[in-house]
Each structure stands twice: as C-alpha cells, then as structure tokens.
C-alpha cells in the first residue's frame, strides 16, 4: 500500500514540483495544502504517514503549524519534515520542537523521495521504472 504524504506550502509551484517528484519518482500518494490552517485540517482528516511542512508561510507559519500538530494527540505521532528556503535555520531548534528533520529548498526532485525516506527511516519506495529512468 502506498504511503500518503501531506505537503503544506503556500507556493503553488513548489507544491506541484514536490507532488510530481514524490509521486512519480518516489511512488508516494501525495495530498496538498496551501496554508498551515488548511494543512491542519487535511492532516486531521486524512491522517497522512508523514507531513512535509514549509517553514515560512503567511498567517499560520510552519513553526506554529508544527506546534499545533505536536500538541494535538491524534496527530502528534505523525512525523513532520520541515521545508525551508532560509539558510539561517536552526535545525536543532526545529528538531527540538518535534520536527523529524529539515529539507532545504531548492531540492533535487530526483533525490527528494530518497531524502524523505532517509529522514523518516523508511525503505525507499522509489518505483523501479523511475529508478531505471533516473539511472
């Protein structure tokens, strides 16, 4: 069964690239949210296997969204990978707040699924077809 990932990012293009990469290269099922608030709702409804959460968003930013997720018992166990374009990000601090890891933009779409699996300790679910294509 395919794992479901929730990608929360206010940038439409990033959402689209991430979805394409994670679905077509990684073989995941990807659902998208364009804001922290929408992400919290979707996470509650869909209970994804992991969440990829952008740090800098208007209104409810990544840090606050992460705090909400970790404070809600039903969703606290869902691993969250923070996605950021900032270089001055304190990884240790984010991990301390409950993040499973940090991914930095720009990312390599061909490597993104593997990076996600590595952070979460999952076996790579990369499609054989895509793997052979990539190679």
């Amino acid at each position, binding site marked *: 069964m395919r794992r479901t990932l929730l990608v929360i990012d206010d*940038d439409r*293009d*990033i959402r*689209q*690239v*991430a979805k*394409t*990469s994670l679905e*077509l*290269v990684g073989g995941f099922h990807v659902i998208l949210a364009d804001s922290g608030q929408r992400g919290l709702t979707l996470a509650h409804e869909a209970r994804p296997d992991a969440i990829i959460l952008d740090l*800098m968003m208007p209104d409810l930013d990544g840090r606050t969204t992460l705090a909400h997720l970790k404070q809600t018992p039903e969703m606290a166990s869902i691993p969250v990978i923070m996605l950021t*374009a*900032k*270089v*001055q990000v304190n990884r240790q601090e984010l991990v301390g707040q409950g993040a499973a890891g940090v991914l930095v*933009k*720009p*990312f*390599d*779409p*061909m490597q993104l699924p593997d990076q996600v699996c590595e952070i979460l300790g999952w076996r790579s679910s990369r499609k054989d077809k*895509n793997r052979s*294509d*990539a190679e």
Partner: protein
Amino acid sequence: MVMIGRIRLWIIAASVVSLAALSAVSWLSYRNTKELIAANQRLARAHKMIEDLAALHVLLDGAETSCRDYALSGRAESLKPYEAALAQLDVTMQVLRRDLAADPNRSRQFQELEPVVNARLETMKELVQARSASGLEAAVRVLQSDRGKKLTDEIRQQISIVQTEERNDLLDRERESRERARSTILGVGVTCLLGIVLLLTASLVIVRLNRQSESDHIALQNAERIQRTILNSAAYSMISTDKTGLILTVNAATEKWLQYRGAELAGSSILGLHDAAELHSRGVQLTRAMGMPVGGDYQALVTKAGYGVADDFECTYVRKDGTRFPVSLSVTALRTGGNDLAGYLMIATDLSEQRAIEKMKDEFVSVVSHELRTPLASIKGALGLLVGGVTGPLPPKAGEMAQIALSNSDRLSRLVDDILDLQRIESGRITIDKRLCNVAALMKESSESVRLVAEGEGVTIEVSPCSGSINADQERMVQALINLLGNAIKFSPWGGRIEFAAERTGRSVVFRVEDNGRGIPKDKLETIFERFQQVDASDAREKGGTGLGLAIVRSIVQQHGGRVWAESDLGKGSKFWIQLPLESDSMTTE
C-alpha cells in the same frame, strides 16, 4: 623642563659660591677686627709706656732739683719734693717693670736702665747726707764731682732710646692698623657688593622663574583644555577608576550615554554601570580560561588588564534609568612611573547602532534568501523532473536545452548560497561553534562528501590524516575542506590524483590538498582568495564555480584564527594549505 633644571643648577652653584665668599669675607673681617683691637691695645700700652718713661724722667728731674735746692739752702722743706718723688719713683719703676716684661727687648733695656736710675738715686741720697751731715762745702764737693750729671745724661739717653723705639713701633703699628682697617673696609665693601650682586641675580632668576612658571601654567592650562576637549568630543565613553574600582573621572560621552552627571559617578563603584549576571558569567569564564579563581564582580572586569593582557570584550552598560545597551569595552591598567598600579581606564564604544544594522542585515539576508531560493526551487525542481524523464521522454534537442537550464539553475542556486554564506561568515553573524573535532574524522567527512563527484570526474583522493583533535566548528571546517577538495577535483585531469593530508607542525596543524591539475600562475596565488577572482574568467561557466569558494574558505579559516595559502607549479598542479593554530586549549593529543 630642561630650562628649569638648568636654572635650579645655577641657583645651587651660585648659593654655594656666595656662601663660600661670604664665609671667607666674614672670617677675614673677624680676623682683621680682632687684630685691630689687639693693635689698639698695643698702641695704648706703648703710649702708656712712653708716658711712664716721661714720668720717670720728670720724677728724677724733680728729685734732683729738690736735692740741689736742699744742698744750697739747707732747708728741710726743700726735700719734700724729693721724698714725694722717691715714693712715686718706686711705683713707676714697678709699673714699668711689669709693662716691659712682655717685650724681651724692652725688658733688657729696663734692666740696663734700672741700675743707672738706682745709682742716680744713690748720688742724690749722698748729696742730701753730705749737706745734712757735713754742711754746704761737702755738698758742693759732691755736686762738683759731676757723677750725678753723667748719670742723669745716661738716664735721659736710655729713656730717649726706648721712647724713640716705642714711637717708631707706634708708627709701624698705626700703619699696620690703618692697613687692617682698610682691608676690613674693603672686605665689608666686597661682601656688600657681592650681596647686592647676588640679590640682583636672585631677583632676576625669581622674575625669570615666575615668567617661566606663568608660561608653563598657561601651557598646562591650554594642554588640559585641549585634552578635556578631546576627551569630551570623543565618541567613546572613558571612565577612569582607582585600584578598587571607584570611579575617578568620566568624559562627556559617558555622562550622555549613561544619563549620569560626572559628580554623581565620581567616587561610586564601576559595578553600578554593569550587569551583575554578565559579570558573574565572565568571572566563571575567566576562571576557566586563566586557570585561577576570578571573582564574578569587579575582578571579572580588570583581572586580565591587571596582568598587562589586552582586554577587549563586549558587555552591557546600565543607564541611570535601568535601561541597557551593548558596548565594546577595552580595559587598560593605569600605571605610575614606578610601574605601580594606579587604577584602570575603561573605554567603551556604543554598539547599539551596529547591532541594529546587523539585525537589519540579518532580516535582509533572511528575506533575500527566501525570496530567491523559493522560485529557484520551483525552476530547479521542474527542470530536474523534465531532465529526469519523470514527465516522459523529451525530444533530444529539448532534453539538451532542459539540461542547460538545469545546470545553470544549479549554478545560480550555488551562487545565491555562497553569497549568503560569505556575507554571514564575514559579518560574524554565524557563531563559530568550536568543539573538539578529531582531525581524521573531519578529513573523512570532507572526502566522503566529494567522493561521488570525484569518481564522476575520474579522480582519486588519497587521505593521510594525522592524529589529534582541534577545537573547531566541525560543519564550517568541513565546508572549507570540501571547497578545497571540490576545486582540486574540478581542475584535475581525468585519472588525476588528489593528496589530502594533515600534519602537526610545531604549534599548529596543517591540512594540505594537492592536485596534479593545470596549476595557478604566481600572480594569482593571492587574488584567488578574493571574491569572484578566478584563474580564468571562463572557469565559472565551464567548471560551474561561483568564484566565491576560496573566499569562503579564507573567511572560515580566519574565523578560526588560522590562515590559508596556495602554492603552485604551473602545468604541474597546485597545493592548498590550511594552518590552524595549535594553542594549549585548541588541540589535544588523543
């Protein structure tokens, strides 16, 4: 100062000379006066002697006349002057004997005179006896014998000789006295003159000293005014304290910044201007660094400076109203000429503005990094998916174009990263988190990071680590080493070999990255560490570099207190060295 010293020397010399001259003249005057008194006494004695001799002569004449009268008249009353003269003669002879005894010559003359006088008295006595016993004729016979007259002449002659000699003596002594008086007058005159000259000289010197002192005083006042103006115009807070930390003086900037008046601060403790918790923490830090107990109070401020070590650090000043602001503080020990500790000087620069600028810069970097990297992420991601064939196979020409777009977006992405990185490192906004790092582990991590790239370029990396650990920010040192290795890979030919070694040399550890690539011209060995300085302008395009890699390496190494340099044989290869200081607390042997 030299002038005053010379004048003082002159005053001392003149005082000594005048004292000596005054002593000499005083002694001369004293001696002359004393001798003058003695000469006067002698004169008086001589006069008296002459008078006594004259009196003797008169007495003898009187006695003789009296005897002759008696001899002729036979009247007893005629003898009365004779008898009176005899009594007087006895006294006069005694006086003369005593007065002349002091002078051997006169004493001898008196001894010669005395028997003659006695003989003369004897003849008078014979005359009187002859008259009284045998009458006038007998007396006339005595008179006619002429012996008395001869004796009288002899006495007169001897007295005359003595008187003449005494008078001559008197003349000599009077001349001598006059000379002495003259020399005394001269001495006193010279002394007076000398005194006047000295008085005038002293007056001149005093006037000159006064003028000098006045001009010195004015110069001092001017210097003090200038110094105060400088101190008060300085954009630094300057506080001087005594040895115990009590404030002595403050400048205008201190008053303005801290909102105190100088008089309020004078005599109060410097601790009132500092954050107590900050000082406590610095005390703990210094105790650890210096290996000796340093109190978390005033000692935390001055201990290092007290040992003559330059002490510049950042801390917080507390204003009168309790608000705070950051300062860069420099503490210096104030020492007297004898090198005794007199107190401390604390010069502070207000860092508020600098901090505000840094904060703005940070915000700018944050915004720029986000705003540039987000669209780049989309471009790179989309192109990556296209080139990766995820969205389906592309026609060959389209694939080629997509590949060009992807590699250039990669380059742009690296450039943005490098610019932001360099800005943050050079502005010191990246905290260099120094921890004990194993040299071999650092080298392994760096070489592993570039191994795939190296393999892709057909380049092998030989790693020769040394033992030991250094105190460094692991992430940043790995970044620096990766940049050097990345460069070496880029410029190595297919099948090339890179030597990546570390050695401990004296008080440092030296990393070496050596390739057998095309090398670097000598005139570029320094400039390649500048921003956007590459050996060949086309390198950025062809080799995919940003022109910032080595600038970043240099910044990171400098942040660690080390240095980086390059050596090269053109056409044979290049060697890059990173030397990090091996201080007692920055490297330990395992």
